[in-house]
């Protein structure tokens, strides 16, 4: 059975989706990712979809689910690198991924997570203005 690898990077988990997902594979990813958050106590999840060419309503729902489930476990989810064509299609479809954070690339996603969790992680003491990037 195919599986999508999940990498642990400090307090964050990184998933890079590089193949076309069919529904069962997406569900496995959801399951694996949530288990991993619970095992590692990760504070953030980065999902890189920069090479994904299609996000339909099912895949959108999985992304939303991962974000909601992680949030209950005190981890924030950032979806990074969505392609313009995918973003336009999702909006037309009527899906705006409410409650999911987004960033242009992994680096910016990491920055966003650090800012969000800045105080708790004590990574920077600067009082940075909290950017509200949540899609709500």
């Amino acid at each position, binding site marked *: 059975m195919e599986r999508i690898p999940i990498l642990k990077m400090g307090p964050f988990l990184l998933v890079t989706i590089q193949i076309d997902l069919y*529904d069962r594979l997406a569900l496995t990813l959801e399951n694996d990712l949530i288990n991993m958050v619970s095992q590692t106590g990760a504070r953030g999840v980065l999902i890189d979809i920069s090479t994904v060419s*299609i996000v*339909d309503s*099912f895949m959108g*729902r999985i992304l939303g689910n991962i974000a909601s489930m992680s949030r209950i476990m005190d981890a924030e989810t950032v979806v990074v690198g969505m392609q313009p*064509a995918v973003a336009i299609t999702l909006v037309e*479809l009527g*899906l705006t991924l409410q409650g999911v954070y987004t960033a242009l690339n992994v680096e910016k996603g990491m920055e966003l997570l650090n800012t969000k969790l800045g105080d708790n992680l004590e990574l920077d003491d600067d009082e940075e203005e909290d950017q509200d990037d949540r899609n709500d």
Partner: protein
Amino acid sequence: MIVMTKDTMEIVREQDVVPFRNRVREFSTRIGMSLVNQTKLITAASELVRNMLKYASGGKVILEIISYNAKTGVRLTFKDEGPGIPDVAMAMRDGFSTGRSLGLGLPGAKRLVNEFDLKSNPGEGTTVTVIHWKNGR
């Protein structure tokens, strides 16, 4: 209306979806459809093929490149012999679902393509036909 290329694919398992999507991409690339329009068509196709698998445990899809009034486009016809849709108007409504999903499949797919037609007879099955033109209008 002239049909320039035609192909039929049987969809019976979830794994058939990925090759099917690739075939739709191949057809739309062949007529020079832009990336955004390709993505819209494939996403709509993905929604419709999922419905077919979920509610009718599969069916077949006819893929065609068509030409009409100096416009070129891709036409997809999804045919199943499932239970059919009792209330089509209801099924086309945003957020309505009998299958615990977001209920965006049918109305969302309709928004993504240029032409959308749904025929369903309860007990006999459902046929959905979509057309997306090369330039998206």
